[in-house]
């Protein structure tokens, strides 16, 4: 006899922070400003976000120096899980962010260069504190594609090929995203945050094919990211993408779709969700 699943699928609000301000771009360029990260984080938590992710996309050391202050100020009044990523290259970087009140760190380029970093942080702070972020570039498609085209492609080809990219999507590697997710799990990552670069900022929906493939390949939770444009896209990625959580930024910040309407759509579709919050 099995009981109905009650673990809620998480809706995560992401703040991309540059030199202390929240920004959001389309495919990681053309950034536009969305305000104070701490205020936004509290507002998202109050309106039902299950978790907050703060990603520092500052390029330089000077711009990044404000990060710890921002993390501390945000954590002060945030009583939901709080993950911080961007520019974390060493165990000490991770320790500083966690000491400022983050619950998890998200690793990306530095873990690609040196996977042992995952293990070092997991050994010291536990796997639950380590999220491995993968920026994946589909190798079988070049441009943003529609769901229909994606489905067609999927029928022709059962395996989704995607390469890992680093440095905010600016540099491609020849690593396969699914293999890297598996290896990261073995190294001690507690969750995988998967961003499909071709979808990021497009509002055309999540890449359900790639998400499902990676969700099936690992035993840790997978957070889908990139492409959220409507409540229906969340329903899609939980059903077809088999994601454990889904993340979005701009559609929440600019008030295009409230978190509540995403959760209402999930509840209507019979997906376990923390709603009303």
């Amino acid at each position, binding site marked *: 006899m099995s009981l109905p699943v*009650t673990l*809620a699928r998480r809706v995560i609000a992401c703040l991309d922070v540059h030199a202390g301000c929240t920004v959001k771009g389309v495919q990681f360029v053309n950034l536009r400003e969305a305000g104070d990260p701490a205020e936004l984080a509290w507002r998202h938590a109050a309106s039902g976000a*299950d978790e907050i992710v703060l990603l520092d996309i500052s390029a330089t050391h000077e711009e990044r120096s404000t990060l710890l202050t921002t993390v501390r100020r945000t954590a002060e009044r945030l*009583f939901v899980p709080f993950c911080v990523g961007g520019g974390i290259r060493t165990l000490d970087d991770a320790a500083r962010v966690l000491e400022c*009140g983050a619950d998890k760190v998200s690793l990306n380029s530095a873990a690609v260069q040196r996977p042992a970093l995952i293990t070092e942080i997991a050994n010291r702070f536990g*796997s639950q504190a380590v999220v491995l972020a993968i920026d994946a570039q589909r190798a079988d498609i070049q441009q943003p594609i529609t769901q229909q085209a994606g489905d067609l492609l999927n029928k022709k080809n059962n395996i989704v090929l995607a390469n890992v990219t680093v440095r905010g999507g600016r540099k491609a590697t020849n690593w396969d995203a699914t293999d890297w997710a598996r290896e990261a799990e073995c190294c001690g990552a507690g969750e995988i945050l998967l961003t499909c670069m071709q979808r990021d900022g497009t509002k055309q929906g999540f890449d359900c094919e790639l998400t499902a493939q990676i969700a099936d390949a690992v035993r*840790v939770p997978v957070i889908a990211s990139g492409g959220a444009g409507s409540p229906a896209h969340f329903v899609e990625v939980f059903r077809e993408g088999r994601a*454990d959580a889904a993340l979005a930024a701009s559609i929440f910040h600019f008030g295009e779709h409230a978190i509540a309407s995403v959760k209402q759509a999930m509840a209507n579709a019979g997906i376990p969700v923390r709603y009303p919050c």
Partner: protein
Amino acid sequence: MVAIVDYGAGNVTSVAKTLRFCGADAQVTNRPEDVLVASKIVLPGVGHFSSTQRLQESGLRDAILARAAKEVPFLGICVGMQWMFGGSSEAPDVPGAGWLPGRCERFPADAKCPHVGWNRLQLQGESPLLEGLPQGTFVYFTHSYFVPSTPAASALTNYQGLFPAAINQGNLYGVQFHPEKSGDAGLHILRNFLRL
């Protein structure tokens, strides 16, 4: 004074910050003498059960046991709750407090592990800690091991079967979830604890 026991495992900062937000005079400490004068004790913890070994080495274990025997309210969070039992298969050589019998076990291999996210509480009977919460309240979990079933369970949660999410035996309380990360429901639980 509420003593938040710091034994080098996990994020005591966020537990301290949240208790202070709820109005507590909370002090993070690794000294047994502070525990011995505390009016309430909180044992947080995330990560590996083996880290509780440091409670023994530092004398904190004896201080907690002595104080708990004098009816001082104790709250174990996550690994802190697991420590209230005999031990854990995560670190078989490290003893828990032994207030409750049995050993913590890992979720079965067919479950996604860790169990991460918001899940529902099935309230069992009455517990001052959970008073005022609606049935089915969502709280935030992140753990790979769970405590054995016990009559002391005041709430159960379903993840590949039911496990105790909260326990209460006299002045001893434990929660497997993170009240400091569970939004308004978590703040409500911590305020209940401060009122004990």
